[in-house]
Protein backbone atom coordinates (compact mmCIF):
# COMPACT_ATOMS: atom_id res chain seq x y z
CA UNK A 1 0.00 0.00 0.00
CA UNK A 2 2.70 2.47 0.97
CA UNK A 3 5.26 0.92 -1.31
CA UNK A 4 4.59 3.14 -4.29
CA UNK A 5 4.01 6.33 -2.37
CA UNK A 6 7.00 8.50 -3.15
CA UNK A 7 8.76 9.60 -0.06
CA UNK A 8 8.89 13.33 0.42
CA UNK A 9 7.76 15.60 -2.36
CA UNK A 10 10.00 14.38 -5.16
CA UNK A 11 8.33 14.80 -8.54
CA UNK A 12 10.07 12.55 -11.06
CA UNK A 13 10.67 14.20 -14.42
CA UNK A 14 13.40 14.18 -17.00
CA UNK A 15 14.56 17.79 -16.87
CA UNK A 16 17.79 19.75 -16.75
CA UNK A 17 16.88 20.99 -13.26
CA UNK A 18 16.44 17.43 -12.01
CA UNK A 19 19.87 16.55 -13.33
CA UNK A 20 21.70 19.43 -11.67
CA UNK A 21 24.28 18.52 -9.06
CA UNK A 22 22.54 18.30 -5.69
CA UNK A 23 25.28 20.33 -4.01
CA UNK A 24 24.79 23.16 -6.49
CA UNK A 25 21.05 22.99 -5.95
CA UNK A 26 21.44 23.15 -2.17
CA UNK A 27 23.75 26.16 -2.33
CA UNK A 28 21.69 28.00 -4.94
CA UNK A 29 18.50 27.43 -2.95
CA UNK A 30 20.24 28.99 0.02
CA UNK A 31 21.38 31.95 -2.10
CA UNK A 32 17.84 32.38 -3.43
CA UNK A 33 16.38 32.35 0.10
CA UNK A 34 18.90 34.90 1.33
CA UNK A 35 18.24 36.96 -1.80
CA UNK A 36 14.50 37.13 -1.05
CA UNK A 37 15.22 38.86 2.25
CA UNK A 38 17.00 41.67 0.43
CA UNK A 39 14.09 42.31 -1.91
CA UNK A 40 12.37 45.56 -1.05
CA UNK A 41 10.43 46.80 -4.07
CA UNK A 42 7.57 45.27 -6.04
CA UNK A 43 9.96 45.31 -8.96
CA UNK A 44 12.28 42.98 -6.99
CA UNK A 45 9.41 40.64 -6.23
CA UNK A 46 8.46 40.50 -9.87
CA UNK A 47 12.02 39.65 -10.73
CA UNK A 48 12.01 36.85 -8.14
CA UNK A 49 8.70 35.49 -9.41
CA UNK A 50 10.02 35.55 -12.97
CA UNK A 51 13.08 33.54 -11.94
CA UNK A 52 10.88 31.07 -10.10
CA UNK A 53 8.57 30.59 -13.07
CA UNK A 54 11.53 30.08 -15.41
CA UNK A 55 12.87 27.36 -13.09
CA UNK A 56 9.47 25.69 -12.79
CA UNK A 57 9.12 25.59 -16.58
CA UNK A 58 12.68 24.32 -17.03
CA UNK A 59 12.03 21.61 -14.43
CA UNK A 60 8.85 20.50 -16.27
CA UNK A 61 6.91 20.71 -13.03
CA UNK A 62 3.18 21.30 -12.97
CA UNK A 63 2.30 24.59 -11.23
CA UNK A 64 -0.04 22.67 -8.94
CA UNK A 65 2.83 20.73 -7.38
CA UNK A 66 4.51 23.98 -6.31
CA UNK A 67 1.27 25.54 -5.13
CA UNK A 68 0.58 22.47 -3.03
CA UNK A 69 3.60 23.22 -0.87
CA UNK A 70 2.39 26.83 -0.46
CA UNK A 71 -0.95 25.51 0.76
CA UNK A 72 0.92 24.00 3.69
CA UNK A 73 1.79 27.44 5.04
CA UNK A 74 -1.53 29.10 4.22
CA UNK A 75 -2.56 29.35 7.86
CA UNK A 76 0.76 30.94 8.77
CA UNK A 77 0.40 33.45 5.94
CA UNK A 78 -3.14 34.43 6.95
CA UNK A 79 -2.25 34.81 10.64
CA UNK A 80 0.87 36.90 10.07
CA UNK A 81 -1.00 39.02 7.52
CA UNK A 82 -3.70 39.89 10.02
CA UNK A 83 -1.16 40.72 12.70
CA UNK A 84 0.90 42.85 10.32
CA UNK A 85 -2.12 44.63 8.92
CA UNK A 86 -3.37 45.80 12.28
CA UNK A 87 -0.14 46.25 14.20
CA UNK A 88 1.60 48.67 11.83
CA UNK A 89 0.28 52.06 12.79
CA UNK A 90 2.62 54.54 11.08
CA UNK A 91 1.91 56.15 7.72
CA UNK A 92 -1.31 57.39 6.15
CA UNK A 93 -4.43 55.96 7.73
CA UNK A 94 -6.72 54.25 5.26
CA UNK A 95 -9.41 52.78 7.51
CA UNK A 96 -10.13 53.32 11.16
CA UNK A 97 -12.76 51.58 13.28
CA UNK A 98 -12.49 51.84 17.08
CA UNK A 99 -9.02 50.55 17.99
CA UNK A 100 -8.48 48.91 14.57
CA UNK A 101 -6.35 51.00 12.25
CA UNK A 102 -5.20 50.06 8.79
CA UNK A 103 -2.48 52.23 7.30
CA UNK A 104 -1.09 52.47 3.79
CA UNK A 105 2.28 51.40 5.16
CA UNK A 106 0.69 48.39 6.85
CA UNK A 107 -0.97 47.28 3.63
CA UNK A 108 2.29 47.46 1.70
CA UNK A 109 4.28 45.66 4.40
CA UNK A 110 1.63 42.93 4.53
CA UNK A 111 1.52 42.40 0.79
CA UNK A 112 5.30 42.24 0.62
CA UNK A 113 5.46 39.81 3.51
CA UNK A 114 2.95 37.48 1.86
CA UNK A 115 4.90 37.66 -1.41
CA UNK A 116 8.12 36.97 0.43
CA UNK A 117 6.72 33.92 2.26
CA UNK A 118 5.09 32.45 -0.85
CA UNK A 119 8.21 32.93 -2.98
CA UNK A 120 10.40 31.52 -0.23
CA UNK A 121 8.39 28.34 0.24
CA UNK A 122 7.92 27.84 -3.50
CA UNK A 123 11.67 28.20 -4.05
CA UNK A 124 12.54 25.80 -1.25
CA UNK A 125 9.98 23.28 -2.48
CA UNK A 126 11.62 23.34 -5.91
CA UNK A 127 14.65 21.75 -4.30
CA UNK A 128 12.58 18.97 -2.74
CA UNK A 129 10.51 18.49 -5.89
CA UNK A 130 13.48 18.01 -8.20
CA UNK A 131 15.97 16.17 -5.96
CA UNK A 132 15.60 12.65 -4.55
CA UNK A 133 16.16 12.27 -0.80
CA UNK A 134 19.23 10.15 -1.52
CA UNK A 135 20.73 12.86 -3.73
CA UNK A 136 19.98 15.40 -1.03
CA UNK A 137 21.74 13.28 1.59
CA UNK A 138 24.74 12.82 -0.70
CA UNK A 139 24.85 16.55 -1.41
CA UNK A 140 24.69 17.40 2.28
CA UNK A 141 27.46 14.93 3.02
CA UNK A 142 29.65 16.46 0.37
CA UNK A 143 28.99 19.99 1.61
CA UNK A 144 29.58 19.02 5.25
CA UNK A 145 32.88 17.32 4.50
CA UNK A 146 35.06 20.25 5.63
CA UNK A 147 33.47 19.82 9.08
CA UNK A 148 35.36 16.56 9.50
CA UNK A 149 38.43 18.71 10.09
CA UNK A 150 36.90 19.76 13.41
CA UNK A 151 36.16 16.10 14.21
CA UNK A 152 32.51 16.07 13.18
CA UNK A 153 31.82 12.43 12.13
CA UNK A 154 30.52 13.44 8.70
CA UNK A 155 30.88 9.97 7.19
CA UNK A 156 28.85 8.35 9.94
CA UNK A 157 26.20 11.07 9.82
CA UNK A 158 25.90 10.56 6.07
CA UNK A 159 25.61 6.78 6.59
CA UNK A 160 22.88 7.32 9.19
CA UNK A 161 20.97 9.61 6.82
CA UNK A 162 21.14 7.22 3.89
CA UNK A 163 20.20 4.19 5.99
CA UNK A 164 17.27 6.08 7.48
CA UNK A 165 16.05 6.91 3.98
CA UNK A 166 16.60 3.34 2.84
CA UNK A 167 14.49 1.92 5.71
CA UNK A 168 11.49 4.23 5.37
CA UNK A 169 9.63 2.00 2.88
CA UNK A 170 10.60 -1.12 4.84
CA UNK A 171 9.18 0.31 8.07
CA UNK A 172 6.04 1.48 6.27
CA UNK A 173 5.46 -2.09 5.13
CA UNK A 174 6.12 -3.35 8.61
CA UNK A 175 3.64 -0.88 10.11
CA UNK A 176 0.98 -2.06 7.69
CA UNK A 177 1.61 -5.69 8.61
CA UNK A 178 1.38 -4.94 12.32
CA UNK A 179 -1.80 -2.92 11.86
CA UNK A 180 -3.34 -5.84 9.94
CA UNK A 181 -2.18 -8.31 12.57
CA UNK A 182 -3.67 -6.24 15.39
CA UNK A 183 -6.90 -5.74 13.49
CA UNK A 184 -7.11 -9.50 12.96
CA UNK A 185 -6.92 -9.81 16.73
CA UNK A 186 -9.84 -7.41 17.05
CA UNK A 187 -8.07 -4.12 17.66
CA UNK A 188 -10.00 -1.08 16.49
CA UNK A 189 -7.57 1.57 15.41
CA UNK A 190 -9.82 4.10 13.76
CA UNK A 191 -12.78 4.43 16.04
CA UNK A 192 -13.36 6.44 19.19
CA UNK A 193 -12.15 9.88 20.16
CA UNK A 194 -8.65 11.19 19.74
CA UNK A 195 -7.43 9.75 23.06
CA UNK A 196 -8.82 6.32 22.31
CA UNK A 197 -7.09 6.41 18.94
CA UNK A 198 -3.76 7.42 20.39
CA UNK A 199 -4.08 4.66 22.95
CA UNK A 200 -4.91 2.18 20.20
CA UNK A 201 -1.60 3.00 18.52
CA UNK A 202 0.42 1.57 21.41
CA UNK A 203 -0.01 -2.07 20.32
CA UNK A 204 1.24 -0.96 16.89
CA UNK A 205 4.19 1.11 18.03
CA UNK A 206 5.65 -1.36 20.51
CA UNK A 207 6.05 -4.25 18.04
CA UNK A 208 7.36 -1.74 15.51
CA UNK A 209 10.03 -0.58 17.94
CA UNK A 210 10.99 -4.11 18.91
CA UNK A 211 11.32 -5.19 15.31
CA UNK A 212 13.27 -2.05 14.40
CA UNK A 213 15.82 -2.85 17.06
CA UNK A 214 16.08 -6.40 15.78
CA UNK A 215 16.56 -5.09 12.27
CA UNK A 216 19.21 -2.64 13.44
CA UNK A 217 21.05 -5.49 15.11
CA UNK A 218 21.00 -7.65 11.98
CA UNK A 219 21.99 -4.70 9.80
CA UNK A 220 24.95 -4.01 12.06
CA UNK A 221 26.14 -7.60 11.59
CA UNK A 222 25.65 -7.36 7.84
CA UNK A 223 27.62 -4.09 7.69
CA UNK A 224 30.42 -5.50 9.82
CA UNK A 225 30.54 -8.60 7.62
CA UNK A 226 31.00 -6.30 4.62
CA UNK A 227 33.99 -4.60 6.26
CA UNK A 228 32.37 -1.32 7.32
CA UNK A 229 35.06 0.72 9.11
CA UNK A 230 37.85 -1.30 7.52
CA UNK A 231 39.69 1.89 6.61
CA UNK A 232 39.45 5.55 7.48
CA UNK A 233 39.56 6.27 3.79
CA UNK A 234 36.26 4.90 2.60
CA UNK A 235 36.06 5.57 -1.13
CA UNK A 236 32.97 6.27 -3.21
CA UNK A 237 31.89 4.69 -6.45
CA UNK A 238 30.05 7.76 -7.65
CA UNK A 239 31.94 10.97 -8.00
CA UNK A 240 29.68 13.91 -8.73
CA UNK A 241 30.94 16.05 -11.57
CA UNK A 242 30.13 19.70 -12.10
CA UNK A 243 28.59 20.00 -15.55
CA UNK A 244 28.10 23.00 -17.80
CA UNK A 245 24.43 23.13 -16.80
CA UNK A 246 25.50 23.45 -13.15
CA UNK A 247 27.66 26.44 -13.98
CA UNK A 248 24.85 27.97 -16.00
CA UNK A 249 22.37 27.51 -13.14
CA UNK A 250 24.83 29.07 -10.71
CA UNK A 251 25.33 32.00 -13.09
CA UNK A 252 21.57 32.62 -13.37
CA UNK A 253 20.88 32.52 -9.64
CA UNK A 254 23.95 34.54 -8.71
CA UNK A 255 23.05 37.17 -11.30
CA UNK A 256 19.62 37.37 -9.73
CA UNK A 257 21.22 37.80 -6.33
CA UNK A 258 23.51 40.55 -7.61
CA UNK A 259 20.67 42.45 -9.26
CA UNK A 260 18.67 42.29 -6.03
CA UNK A 261 21.60 43.65 -4.01
CA UNK A 262 22.37 46.38 -6.54
CA UNK A 263 18.75 47.44 -6.67
CA UNK A 264 18.53 47.64 -2.94
CA UNK A 265 21.78 49.37 -2.03
CA UNK A 266 22.96 51.28 -5.10
CA UNK A 267 19.98 51.99 -7.30
CA UNK A 268 16.96 52.13 -4.99
CA UNK A 269 15.41 54.72 -7.28
CA UNK A 270 15.06 52.14 -10.07
CA UNK A 271 12.75 49.97 -8.00
CA UNK A 272 10.78 52.97 -6.71
CA UNK A 273 10.32 54.40 -10.21
CA UNK A 274 9.29 51.10 -11.77
CA UNK A 275 6.87 50.43 -8.91
CA UNK A 276 5.36 53.89 -9.44
CA UNK A 277 5.16 53.35 -13.17
CA UNK A 278 3.23 50.12 -12.81
CA UNK A 279 1.01 50.81 -9.88
CA UNK A 280 0.73 54.58 -10.27
CA UNK A 281 -1.65 56.10 -7.78
CA UNK A 282 -2.17 52.87 -5.91
CA UNK A 283 1.07 53.32 -4.01
Amino acid at each position, binding site marked *: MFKDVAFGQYYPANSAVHKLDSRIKLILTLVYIIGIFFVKSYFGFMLTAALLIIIIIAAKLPMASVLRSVRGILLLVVLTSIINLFMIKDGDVLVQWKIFVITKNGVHTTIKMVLRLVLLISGASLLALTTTPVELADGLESLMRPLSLIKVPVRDIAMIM*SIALRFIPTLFDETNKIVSAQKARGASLDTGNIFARIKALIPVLIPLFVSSFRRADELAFAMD*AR*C*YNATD*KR*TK*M*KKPKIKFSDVLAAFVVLSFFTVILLERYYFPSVGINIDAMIFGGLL
Partner: protein
Amino acid sequence: MPFIEIKGVSYVYPLREGVSLKAVKNLSLSIEAGEFVALTGMNGSGKSTLAKLLNGLFKPTEGEILIDGVSTANEERIFDIRRRVGMVFQNPDNQTVATLIEDDVAFGPENLGLPRDEIIKRVNFALQAVGMSEYRKRDAAKLSGGQKQRVAIAGVLAMRPDVLILDEATSMLDPAGREEVMGVVRKLVEQGITVINITHNMEEAALAKRVVVLRKGRLAIDGTPSQVFSSSLFESCGLTLPPAAALAKELKDSGIDVGTVTTEESFAEGICKLLR
Protein backbone atom coordinates in the same frame (compact mmCIF):
# COMPACT_ATOMS: atom_id res chain seq x y z
CA MET B 1 46.55 -27.38 4.92
CA PRO B 2 42.74 -26.99 4.73
CA PHE B 3 41.45 -23.51 3.95
CA ILE B 4 39.18 -23.35 6.98
CA GLU B 5 40.30 -25.07 10.16
CA ILE B 6 38.05 -25.15 13.19
CA LYS B 7 40.01 -26.47 16.16
CA GLY B 8 38.16 -27.36 19.36
CA VAL B 9 35.94 -24.30 19.21
CA SER B 10 33.36 -23.42 21.86
CA TYR B 11 31.24 -20.29 21.96
CA VAL B 12 29.31 -18.99 24.95
CA TYR B 13 26.64 -16.30 24.65
CA PRO B 14 26.64 -14.16 27.75
CA LEU B 15 22.90 -13.61 28.23
CA ARG B 16 22.79 -11.70 31.48
CA GLU B 17 24.59 -11.65 34.81
CA GLY B 18 25.42 -15.25 35.72
CA VAL B 19 23.40 -16.76 32.86
CA SER B 20 25.02 -17.89 29.67
CA LEU B 21 24.31 -20.18 26.77
CA LYS B 22 26.87 -22.46 25.22
CA ALA B 23 25.89 -22.55 21.57
CA VAL B 24 28.92 -24.31 20.13
CA LYS B 25 30.75 -27.04 22.05
CA ASN B 26 34.25 -28.26 21.34
CA LEU B 27 33.75 -28.36 17.60
CA SER B 28 36.49 -29.43 15.21
CA LEU B 29 36.05 -29.39 11.47
CA SER B 30 38.07 -28.57 8.41
CA ILE B 31 36.94 -27.42 5.00
CA GLU B 32 39.10 -27.44 1.89
CA ALA B 33 39.22 -24.66 -0.66
CA GLY B 34 36.57 -25.12 -3.35
CA GLU B 35 34.30 -27.40 -1.30
CA PHE B 36 30.51 -27.05 -1.40
CA VAL B 37 29.29 -27.80 2.11
CA ALA B 38 25.77 -27.77 3.53
CA LEU B 39 25.62 -27.08 7.25
CA THR B 40 22.41 -28.20 8.84
CA GLY B 41 20.73 -29.05 12.12
CA MET B 42 17.69 -28.09 14.19
CA ASN B 43 16.98 -24.62 15.51
CA GLY B 44 19.45 -23.94 18.28
CA SER B 45 21.98 -26.48 17.00
CA GLY B 46 24.57 -23.72 16.65
CA LYS B 47 24.66 -23.38 12.85
CA SER B 48 24.29 -19.62 12.68
CA THR B 49 26.65 -19.08 15.58
CA LEU B 50 29.24 -21.14 13.73
CA ALA B 51 28.72 -18.98 10.64
CA LYS B 52 29.37 -15.80 12.63
CA LEU B 53 32.47 -17.43 14.14
CA LEU B 54 33.86 -18.17 10.69
CA ASN B 55 34.27 -14.54 9.65
CA GLY B 56 35.15 -13.15 13.03
CA LEU B 57 31.82 -11.50 13.85
CA PHE B 58 32.08 -13.65 16.99
CA LYS B 59 35.36 -14.72 18.55
CA PRO B 60 35.66 -18.29 19.88
CA THR B 61 35.40 -18.51 23.66
CA GLU B 62 37.69 -21.54 23.48
CA GLY B 63 39.69 -23.02 20.64
CA GLU B 64 40.69 -21.36 17.41
CA ILE B 65 39.50 -20.88 13.86
CA LEU B 66 42.07 -20.50 11.11
CA ILE B 67 41.18 -19.04 7.72
CA ASP B 68 44.04 -19.82 5.34
CA GLY B 69 46.26 -20.06 8.40
CA VAL B 70 45.13 -16.75 9.98
CA SER B 71 43.25 -16.84 13.29
CA THR B 72 39.89 -15.03 13.36
CA ALA B 73 40.93 -13.68 16.75
CA ASN B 74 43.74 -11.72 15.09
CA GLU B 75 42.42 -8.15 15.26
CA GLU B 76 44.95 -6.85 12.78
CA ARG B 77 43.78 -9.17 10.05
CA ILE B 78 40.06 -9.16 10.88
CA PHE B 79 38.98 -7.09 7.85
CA ASP B 80 41.07 -9.26 5.59
CA ILE B 81 39.25 -12.31 6.98
CA ARG B 82 35.84 -10.68 6.56
CA ARG B 83 36.69 -9.78 2.99
CA ARG B 84 37.77 -13.35 2.24
CA VAL B 85 34.84 -14.98 4.02
CA GLY B 86 31.72 -13.23 2.76
CA MET B 87 28.34 -13.76 4.32
CA VAL B 88 24.75 -13.51 3.12
CA PHE B 89 22.10 -13.38 5.84
CA GLN B 90 18.55 -14.63 6.13
CA ASN B 91 16.49 -11.46 5.81
CA PRO B 92 17.22 -9.62 2.57
CA ASP B 93 15.71 -6.39 3.89
CA ASN B 94 18.06 -6.21 6.84
CA GLN B 95 21.28 -6.45 4.88
CA THR B 96 20.67 -3.93 2.12
CA VAL B 97 22.41 -0.72 3.02
CA ALA B 98 21.66 1.52 0.05
CA THR B 99 18.52 2.41 -1.83
CA LEU B 100 19.91 1.81 -5.32
CA ILE B 101 21.10 -1.69 -6.18
CA GLU B 102 24.44 -0.68 -7.66
CA ASP B 103 25.16 1.47 -4.59
CA ASP B 104 24.48 -1.48 -2.34
CA VAL B 105 26.83 -3.74 -4.27
CA ALA B 106 29.47 -0.99 -4.11
CA PHE B 107 29.21 -0.78 -0.31
CA GLY B 108 31.79 -3.50 0.40
CA PRO B 109 34.45 -2.31 -2.09
CA GLU B 110 33.91 1.26 -0.88
CA ASN B 111 34.58 0.12 2.67
CA LEU B 112 37.81 -1.47 1.49
CA GLY B 113 38.91 1.92 0.19
CA LEU B 114 39.44 0.69 -3.37
CA PRO B 115 39.99 3.18 -6.20
CA ARG B 116 36.89 4.27 -8.12
CA ASP B 117 37.68 2.45 -11.37
CA GLU B 118 38.23 -0.79 -9.51
CA ILE B 119 34.92 -0.41 -7.63
CA ILE B 120 33.03 0.13 -10.90
CA LYS B 121 34.75 -2.91 -12.43
CA ARG B 122 33.85 -5.09 -9.46
CA VAL B 123 30.25 -3.91 -9.29
CA ASN B 124 29.82 -4.69 -13.00
CA PHE B 125 31.39 -8.09 -12.51
CA ALA B 126 29.35 -8.98 -9.43
CA LEU B 127 26.01 -7.90 -10.90
CA GLN B 128 26.82 -9.86 -14.03
CA ALA B 129 27.68 -12.97 -12.00
CA VAL B 130 24.25 -13.02 -10.32
CA GLY B 131 22.38 -11.95 -13.45
CA MET B 132 21.16 -8.64 -12.08
CA SER B 133 23.00 -6.22 -14.40
CA GLU B 134 19.89 -4.73 -15.95
CA TYR B 135 18.47 -3.90 -12.51
CA ARG B 136 21.43 -1.84 -11.34
CA LYS B 137 19.60 1.50 -11.28
CA ARG B 138 16.49 0.10 -9.61
CA ASP B 139 15.20 0.62 -6.12
CA ALA B 140 16.19 -2.34 -3.91
CA ALA B 141 12.88 -2.21 -2.01
CA LYS B 142 10.97 -3.07 -5.18
CA LEU B 143 12.71 -6.36 -5.98
CA SER B 144 11.42 -9.86 -5.26
CA GLY B 145 12.96 -11.82 -2.38
CA GLY B 146 15.05 -13.98 -4.72
CA GLN B 147 16.36 -10.91 -6.53
CA LYS B 148 17.22 -9.20 -3.24
CA GLN B 149 19.25 -12.21 -2.14
CA ARG B 150 21.04 -12.31 -5.48
CA VAL B 151 21.96 -8.65 -4.96
CA ALA B 152 23.20 -9.56 -1.48
CA ILE B 153 25.39 -12.26 -3.02
CA ALA B 154 26.67 -9.71 -5.56
CA GLY B 155 27.55 -7.41 -2.64
CA VAL B 156 29.75 -10.16 -1.25
CA LEU B 157 31.23 -11.15 -4.63
CA ALA B 158 32.30 -7.55 -5.25
CA MET B 159 34.78 -8.02 -2.41
CA ARG B 160 36.36 -10.97 -4.28
CA PRO B 161 35.90 -13.51 -1.48
CA ASP B 162 37.31 -17.03 -1.26
CA VAL B 163 34.42 -18.34 0.80
CA LEU B 164 30.71 -17.56 0.58
CA ILE B 165 28.59 -18.38 3.61
CA LEU B 166 24.83 -18.40 3.13
CA ASP B 167 23.20 -18.16 6.56
CA GLU B 168 19.71 -19.53 5.83
CA ALA B 169 19.70 -17.20 2.86
CA THR B 170 16.82 -18.98 1.16
CA SER B 171 14.58 -19.61 4.17
CA MET B 172 12.44 -16.52 3.58
CA LEU B 173 12.05 -17.11 -0.14
CA ASP B 174 9.34 -18.78 -2.17
CA PRO B 175 10.31 -21.88 -4.20
CA ALA B 176 11.02 -19.80 -7.33
CA GLY B 177 13.29 -17.45 -5.37
CA ARG B 178 15.06 -20.41 -3.80
CA GLU B 179 15.64 -21.88 -7.22
CA GLU B 180 17.09 -18.56 -8.47
CA VAL B 181 19.51 -18.26 -5.59
CA MET B 182 20.63 -21.89 -5.70
CA GLY B 183 21.22 -21.54 -9.43
CA VAL B 184 23.62 -18.68 -8.77
CA VAL B 185 25.29 -20.64 -5.95
CA ARG B 186 25.85 -23.68 -8.15
CA LYS B 187 27.48 -21.47 -10.77
CA LEU B 188 29.81 -19.97 -8.15
CA VAL B 189 30.79 -23.43 -6.93
CA GLU B 190 31.75 -24.35 -10.49
CA GLN B 191 33.94 -21.25 -10.59
CA GLY B 192 35.83 -22.53 -7.57
CA ILE B 193 34.45 -20.46 -4.71
CA THR B 194 34.11 -22.35 -1.44
CA VAL B 195 30.44 -22.30 -0.43
CA ILE B 196 29.01 -23.08 2.98
CA ASN B 197 25.23 -23.17 2.81
CA ILE B 198 23.47 -23.16 6.15
CA THR B 199 20.00 -24.54 5.66
CA HIS B 200 17.02 -26.35 7.12
CA ASN B 201 15.96 -27.51 3.73
CA MET B 202 17.18 -31.05 3.02
CA GLU B 203 16.55 -30.77 -0.71
CA GLU B 204 18.99 -27.88 -0.69
CA ALA B 205 21.46 -29.73 1.51
CA ALA B 206 21.36 -32.63 -0.96
CA LEU B 207 22.78 -30.35 -3.66
CA ALA B 208 26.04 -29.97 -1.73
CA LYS B 209 28.97 -32.35 -2.02
CA ARG B 210 29.27 -32.63 1.73
CA VAL B 211 26.72 -32.29 4.52
CA VAL B 212 27.66 -31.40 8.09
CA VAL B 213 24.99 -31.89 10.72
CA LEU B 214 25.17 -30.20 14.12
CA ARG B 215 23.25 -31.25 17.20
CA LYS B 216 23.18 -29.12 20.34
CA GLY B 217 26.39 -27.34 19.33
CA ARG B 218 28.32 -30.52 18.57
CA LEU B 219 29.27 -32.19 15.34
CA ALA B 220 26.84 -35.08 14.80
CA ILE B 221 27.25 -36.31 11.22
CA ASP B 222 29.71 -35.35 8.48
CA GLY B 223 29.71 -36.97 5.04
CA THR B 224 28.28 -37.01 1.55
CA PRO B 225 24.52 -36.38 1.27
CA SER B 226 23.80 -40.09 0.77
CA GLN B 227 25.97 -41.03 3.77
CA VAL B 228 24.24 -38.45 5.93
CA PHE B 229 20.71 -39.34 4.82
CA SER B 230 21.30 -43.03 5.51
CA SER B 231 23.01 -42.40 8.86
CA SER B 232 21.35 -43.95 11.89
CA LEU B 233 21.82 -40.65 13.72
CA PHE B 234 19.96 -38.65 11.07
CA GLU B 235 16.53 -38.61 12.66
CA SER B 236 17.88 -38.04 16.16
CA CYS B 237 19.22 -34.70 14.87
CA GLY B 238 15.63 -33.58 14.34
CA LEU B 239 15.87 -33.66 10.56
CA THR B 240 13.58 -35.15 7.96
CA LEU B 241 14.67 -36.66 4.66
CA PRO B 242 14.07 -34.72 1.45
CA PRO B 243 10.95 -36.05 -0.37
CA ALA B 244 12.91 -37.97 -3.02
CA ALA B 245 15.07 -39.75 -0.45
CA ALA B 246 12.05 -40.44 1.77
CA LEU B 247 10.19 -42.01 -1.13
CA ALA B 248 13.21 -44.12 -2.07
CA LYS B 249 13.38 -45.35 1.52
CA GLU B 250 9.69 -46.31 1.51
CA LEU B 251 10.19 -48.18 -1.75
CA LYS B 252 13.22 -49.98 -0.36
CA ASP B 253 11.25 -51.05 2.71
CA SER B 254 8.62 -52.57 0.44
CA GLY B 255 11.22 -54.41 -1.62
CA ILE B 256 12.03 -52.03 -4.47
CA ASP B 257 15.63 -50.84 -4.34
CA VAL B 258 16.23 -47.70 -6.39
CA GLY B 259 19.78 -47.30 -5.07
CA THR B 260 21.16 -44.30 -3.19
CA VAL B 261 18.89 -41.33 -3.63
CA THR B 262 19.54 -37.76 -2.46
CA THR B 263 17.89 -35.58 -5.08
CA GLU B 264 15.07 -35.90 -7.58
CA GLU B 265 17.64 -36.43 -10.33
CA SER B 266 19.28 -39.38 -8.59
CA PHE B 267 15.82 -40.81 -7.89
CA ALA B 268 14.92 -40.59 -11.57
CA GLU B 269 18.21 -42.27 -12.49
CA GLY B 270 17.54 -45.08 -10.03
CA ILE B 271 14.06 -45.68 -11.43
CA CYS B 272 15.41 -45.69 -14.99
CA LYS B 273 17.98 -48.32 -14.05
CA LEU B 274 15.28 -50.52 -12.52
CA LEU B 275 13.09 -50.27 -15.58
CA ARG B 276 15.86 -51.22 -17.94
